[in-house]
């Protein structure tokens, strides 16, 4: 075995150093000839550095973001063969890399920029050795501006003739946004004209490049349906949202107790079955919230059966499977049905029937639920209950702060048919029920 040092090859363009932007290998990797080692970025393009030999990586010479001088050691490889195949071997290696058309080094500058930037003749450097073209992503070559002017230190005055300064001032352009292509970085009339045509180029941080690719994605299928439904809801329904905090400490204690002995007929309960039971109780007092509002016909269909839609994230997008007749299910029944239908929605086996017919909806993002949300009503329903994340917060109990498991409910209502007062009463009722879980199971 012998050690072989791979140096950063001349990546062309007469540059002396390049910035390391990506490692494709790490110490201990076994690599083959032509495997990519790293990517470096010059001021024009990202260049991939392949390995000239097979071997095992024993050392890497730079961190991402470091500036590496051309010819300095980049990687050390343990290679098979006689000792003494030392570093100069890298040179004889080079001719083997016959410059194929594919390894043409020069990145194409972004089209609009090309004219505007310094009118340099196309670089006629020979294809640099040991280097490949950066993979074009969606047909757009990663190319940074063709500007070789030294960047000004922050706070330094832009260098420009009085005429350029005047023109810029009258055009409302702050010259500090421009880099000049003239000697010593002087901003020329041409630079200003180009800027006026092209608009500001964003500040480029080292190691980052501007991206101009635009990907067109056709909105079809479920995504299209979600889009239409959301637009319908938001454009038709004047939402009113109430956020209320709930002390769920006792509820969580109860849930923990119940979950201690799971059985087939007793699934592990989440918080949602409790919420469903609370909604059933509250709706019994305010049945107008369990309704579908046919605004075209001017009729509110108030349902006796409580069919709770459960907003569910599936691989294809948002779906709302429905727990039918929650009023007829106990806590376990709610839990079992909840698990079943959300599972079917996720694996794509939910039937049309299981996905329709809700009269009120719950939306819960679990731990992602945020502090407060503004849920969008599942049209044509009139209410949606949003569950925010639970967290321990200090609560003043009258004498001291005590840690309490607190959770917010963010609930939206159709303000056309639900008054703020009614909405508030409903939310307060849910709070009362959830904070005193025993009342969920007692008829009062």
């Amino acid at each position: 075995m012998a050690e072989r040092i791979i140096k950063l090859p001349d990546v062309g363009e007469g540059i002396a150093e390049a910035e390391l932007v990506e490692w494709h290998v790490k110490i201990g990797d076994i690599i083959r000839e032509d495997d990519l080692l790293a990517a470096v970025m010059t001021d024009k393009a990202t260049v991939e550095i392949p390995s000239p030999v097979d071997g095992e990586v024993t050392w890497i010479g730079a961190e991402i973001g470091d500036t590496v001088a051309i010819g300095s050691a980049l990687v050390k490889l343990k290679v098979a063969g006689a000792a003494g195949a030392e570093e100069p071997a890298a040179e004889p290696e080079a001719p083997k890399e016959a410059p194929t058309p594919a390894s043409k080094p020069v990145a194409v500058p972004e089209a609009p920029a090309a004219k505007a930037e310094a009118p340099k003749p196309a670089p006629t450097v020979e294809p640099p050795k040991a280097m490949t073209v950066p993979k074009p992503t969606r047909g757009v070559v990663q190319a940074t501006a063709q500007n070789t002017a030294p960047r000004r230190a922050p706070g330094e005055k832009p260098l420009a003739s009085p005429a350029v300064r005047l023109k810029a001032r009258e055009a409302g352009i702050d010259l500090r946004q421009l880099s000049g292509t003239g000697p010593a970085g002087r901003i020329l009339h041409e630079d200003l004209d180009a800027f006026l045509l092209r608009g500001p180029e964003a500040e480029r941080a080292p190691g980052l490049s501007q991206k101009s690719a635009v990907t067109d994605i056709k909105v079809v299928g479920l995504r299209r349906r979600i889009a239409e439904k959301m637009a319908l809801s938001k454009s038709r329904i004047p939402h009113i949202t109430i956020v209320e905090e709930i002390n769920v400490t006792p509820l969580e204690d109860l849930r923990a107790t119940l979950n201690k002995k799971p059985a087939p007929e007793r699934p592990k309960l989440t918080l949602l079955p409790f919420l469903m039971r609370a909604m059933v109780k509250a709706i019994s007092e305010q049945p107008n919230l369990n309704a579908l509002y046919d605004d075209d016909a001017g009729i509110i269909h108030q349902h006796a059966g409580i069919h709770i839609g459960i907003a569910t994230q599936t691989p294809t997008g948002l779906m709302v499977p429905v727990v039918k007749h929650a009023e007829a299910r106990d806590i376990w029944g709610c839990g079992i049905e909840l698990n079943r239908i959300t599972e079917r929605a996720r694996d794509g086996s939910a039937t049309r029937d299981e996905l329709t017919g809700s009269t009120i909806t719950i939306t819960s993002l679990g731990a992602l639920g945020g502090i407060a949300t503004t849920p969008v009503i599942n049209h044509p329903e009139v209410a949606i209950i949003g569950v925010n994340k639970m967290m321990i917060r200090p609560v003043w109990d009258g004498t001291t702060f005590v840690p309490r498991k607190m959770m917010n409910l963010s609930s939206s209502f159709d303000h056309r048919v639900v008054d703020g007062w009614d909405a508030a009463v409903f939310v307060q009722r849910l709070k009362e029920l959830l904070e005193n879980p025993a009342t969920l199971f007692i008829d009062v």
Partner: protein
Amino acid sequence: MTEITCKLLVIGAGPGGYVCAIRAGQLGLDTVIVESTKLGGSCLNVGCIPSKAMIHVAEEFEKAAHAAAGKTPFGLTASAPKLDLKQAVAWKDGIVQRLNNGVAALLRKSKVKIVHGRARFRDGKTVIVETETGPRTIKAETIVIATGSAPVELPFLPFGGNVISSTGALALTEVPRRLAVVGGGYIGLELGTAFAKLGAKVTVVEAQAGILPLYDTELTAPVARHLAALGVEVLLGAKARGMTPKGDALLIETAGGEEKRIEADKVLVTVGRAPVTAGLGLEELVLDMDGRFIRIGERCETSMRGIHAIGDVTGEPMLAHRAMAQGEMVAEIAAGLARAWDKRCIPAVCFTDPEIVSVGLSPEEARKAGIEIKTGKFPFAANGRAMTRHGEEGFVRIVAQAQTQLVLGVQAVGQGVSELSSAFGLAIEMGATLEDIAGTIHAHPTLGEAVQEAALMALGHAIHI
């Protein structure tokens, strides 16, 4: 009491004020300018212009005197010159008057209304002017304070009698036999040199350790040598204490702490200039000050909306050309144009013998700013034109950023170098690099070739040295 309402009111018709008013008139603004004395300010009446006239007289006299003494190397002789200083002063006054009239004509041409009298603020939009015919109220949307500066008086050397200011020195009709100059800045040395050439025995008393403290010693050394050759005694680190009771000598404390008596027929006090704000009614306004000066921003705006200040009243450098540029800018701002102060340099010229020009950064200033520099310094001793003018003293020095060759500063000392200042300023304002100057053909034979050679020298390949 008549009331005038205008768009722009300029208080003070010095170089800042009158340029501001003319430019405003050009831009079609309804403009009024108020001046309590003569148009043209200190610069035109008692500063730049008259002093240059008297310096010219002194130079001509010195040349003739050299010829009379057989000191020219080219064999010119003449009989001893005689100067009628009264006539010289009248000639100078004639120039001043022509320029006064010129300013008035230019203001009229731009349709600027001139009001003679002393202005006093009543509020931020109103000024009362005491004219010969009574007070006039002027209301303006924008007011520009351009009241300039005046020579500083020392409490123990009040002006009057034999103690004179630069204004008094320019009005002398007889050359004093012995002249003491308190203050070795550019005003004192320009006038002191002129009187020395006219035959006065001149003693300069400077409190600092060197003359012309604004310039580095490399630039001032040729001036110091020439002062010595002229027989001017320069006392450094010395403090003026007052006049003798009889008023025939200046009492000073030398650097060594000794009392010394300097016999003098006149004592010229040139220890700086102070802004003129007294009597202006600034107490009616709430202007932020910067010491004694009015604080301004990059648009020469003061802390009060609608009030701008330009020129010496806003602080250093107290130079006419700075005031002019500020005046022009403020007029354009008043006309609604987008402008801000973005000059890269303000040239400074010292009309001593030899002259000094400094534009941009000196090597020391650049190094202090942490800039890596390269310099080139080309002596006039190697310049053909300097030799044929019989003025080989001095050099051109160029300071550039080492990495980019960007010219940061150009300085020169030598005969007639004041005329090179425009080239220096242009180079810096345009963002020239050493190659730009080196690559520009400079006419032969001129002093300007030394500029090109200095640039070449900084690049490492000067030709003529």
